[in-house]
């Protein structure tokens, strides 16, 4: 009997091992060589702040989300740190949620970095960590998701979600006026609707439209993924047999939205994207789809955050500003990319 049960457990082990190794072997059979993410780094120029200075150790943490934008954030930070000879880059995985990220960050603190650059899962939930690190004398650079308490960060650099909505609506209003469309039907495909950033974007969009006497006819939220974008757009097209303008918040889900446009064979409207992916910029430049513009929310902010963290660590200011230290808050402007200027922005696309 014991012999028998030992056999069984051995067999079980064997199967587990076989299953695991099958996965590993299979994973080896596929590769993905031709999708390099162009790092949006600023080459270390000559003179001034770029001169190698005091050695700075930068601790970095960002969520491992399955999204091109977040992936670009991490890649940019890494690449920018690599461009400086005096920066040591220590990255910790942020795990699945705020609690996991807090745990990862406490191991980071114990390694005593000079500066921490952090894109939190949730600014509110990690506010206490910011306070703790600042109290321990480690300056914290908050990337994109703000801490409510100003004492919790040394520098905050983020995109302008409300401004994104404003920029998209402004472009749409201009175009509609130029075309002389009366009573236009405007659709909107936001990302995950429960996120504050989505709500801010939608508010900026709705406010600006309202100021021009317009409103959103229908909005179908997707989930920042291409397949959800396709489904949301398909639903929207059923609801609005005739459409004049459409704002899709995110270029990654925009791949699916454009697929739905082709599948439904709709071309009576124009579309504005969001975030500024490389593919969207190329589509805008080629001018052969309904996508005519995109409003930026650029992950290049991660590169800037690393540069600024280095300056903070070395106690230097930004060379173009008069102040001797780096400012406390930087909000990137949301820029509108159209066919005319897409060429300039391509290097920032992710």
């Amino acid at each position, binding site marked *: 009997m014991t012999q028998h049960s030992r056999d069984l457990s051995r067999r*079980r082990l064997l199967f*587990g091992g076989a299953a695991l190794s099958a996965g590993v072997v299979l*994973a080896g059979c*596929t590769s993905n060589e031709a999708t390099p993410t162009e790092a949006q780094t600023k080459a270390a120029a000559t003179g001034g702040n770029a001169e190698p200075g005091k050695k700075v150790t930068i601790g970095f943490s960002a969520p491992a989300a399955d999204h091109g934008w977040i992936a670009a954030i991490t890649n940019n930070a890494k690449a920018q740190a690599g461009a400086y000879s005096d920066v040591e880059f220590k990255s910790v995985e942020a795990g699945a949620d705020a609690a996991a990220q807090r745990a990862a960050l406490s191991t980071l603190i114990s390694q005593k970095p000079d500066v921490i650059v952090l894109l939190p899962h949730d600014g509110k939930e990690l506010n206490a960590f910011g306070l703790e690190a600042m109290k321990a004398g480690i300056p914290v650079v908050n990337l994109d998701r703000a801490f409510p308490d100003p004492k919790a960060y040394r520098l905050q650099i983020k995109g302008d979600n409300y401004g994104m909505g404003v920029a998209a609506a402004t472009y749409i209003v201009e175009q509609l006026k130029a075309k002389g469309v009366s009573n236009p039907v405007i659709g909107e495909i936001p990302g995950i609707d429960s996120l504050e950033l989505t709500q801010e974007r939608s508010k900026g969009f709705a406010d600006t439209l309202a100021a021009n006497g317009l409103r959103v006819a229908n909005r179908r939220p997707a*989930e920042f993924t291409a397949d959800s974008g396709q489904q949301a757009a398909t639903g929207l097209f059923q*609801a609005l047999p005739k459409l004049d303008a459409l704002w899709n918040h995110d270029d*990654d889900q925009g791949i699916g939205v454009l697929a739905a446009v082709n*599948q439904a064979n709709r071309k009576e409207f124009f579309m504005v994207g969001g975030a500024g992916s490389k593919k969207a910029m190329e589509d805008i430049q080629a001018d052969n789809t309904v996508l005519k513009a995109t409003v930026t929310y650029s992950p290049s902010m991660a590169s800037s955050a690393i540069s600024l963290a280095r300056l903070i660590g070395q106690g230097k200011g930004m060379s173009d500003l008069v102040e001797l230290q780096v400012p406390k808050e930087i909000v990137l402007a949301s820029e509108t990319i159209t066919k005319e200027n897409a060429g300039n922005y391509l290097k920032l696309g992710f």
Partner: protein
Amino acid sequence: MSEMSPTATPERPADLPAQSPPVDPAETAAATAKSDAPGRLSWWRGDGGEGAKRNLGLLATLVVLVVIGILTRPDLYGNASWVWGNTLTILKLASVVGVVTVGMTFVIIGGGIDLSVGAIVALAGVWATTVATQSYGAGGMIFSALTVGLAVGVVNGLLVSYGRLVPFIATLAMMVAARGLAAEISDKQTQVSNNTFINGIASTELLGIPLLVYILAAVVVAGWVLLNRTTFGRRTVAVGGNPEAARLAGINVRRHTLYLYALSGLCCGIAAVMLTAQATSAQAAMANLYELDAIAAAIIGGTLLSGGRGTIIGSLLGVVIFSTITNLFAINGLSTEAQNMVKGGIIVAAVLIQQVQFRSLTQFLGRNRATTT
């Protein structure tokens, strides 16, 4: 569950109708496990009609949803070509989850559960759209999606049947692992499919009906035949209804369980091709929560979560109902929060109706009949 076991059928006449000598041991096992003895009881009163009655209930729900659509958007429904296009859109939206649900229905009827279906779709989709795979053309992409789906399903099946893991745990682990592998392969990027044949699957129409709908129909028909007209289907019901009885009847329960998970994986591979075609891309986060959509559709379609009972048609209706609700909320411009609440409500209502009304109704009819004759 009690009504499934051969001992607890008080409303049934003690002498079961004489079966012809069974060709396959599964026949008897299935018959006893289902307690679905035809013959003396009329089709409508007997359990045999229960699935059909439930499906009629689902059809009625569907009609109600369409009527709500007509009442709320008469302007759209007044246009016949819009109505036809909208119907096809609903079916197209249902097609991917529908294919997944067919596989899920088999697994659940067989007494298991597969929580990894969404992750398998994502992994198969990502695998099929890597630069390396795309270089082999459409055939290579479809082949790799189907193979990956089948392979992951086989691993699930091995873990459950021979590894003796609880299905919930084994497939939960696979859900996490497969999404992880998908994220690793894709480097968290959205992989755009540049293959015009694959992308064309979503926009091609034959005789005015989208190719995706044909694929769904083919999978549903194949699933229906497999479940209702083959030994494999009878064994599935037997294994799910009473594994011990099935084993005693000579069915290799472990091997059959393995086949069921492999089948589910294969369905996910097919769904991955369809979803990749629709989105013209794939990424690790795609097919998010499809496992819940598929389980919910199977459950409101009348599949018993503890196994041994279920219909393919019911599951299909479940998927179409969910797809119709999504469409209804879209054309009325209502928020998705409200839509999710309604979906939750429908799941609860459907299960409650099945638990209470049909069972007591059939019991009542059965008792009534017993006293009158």
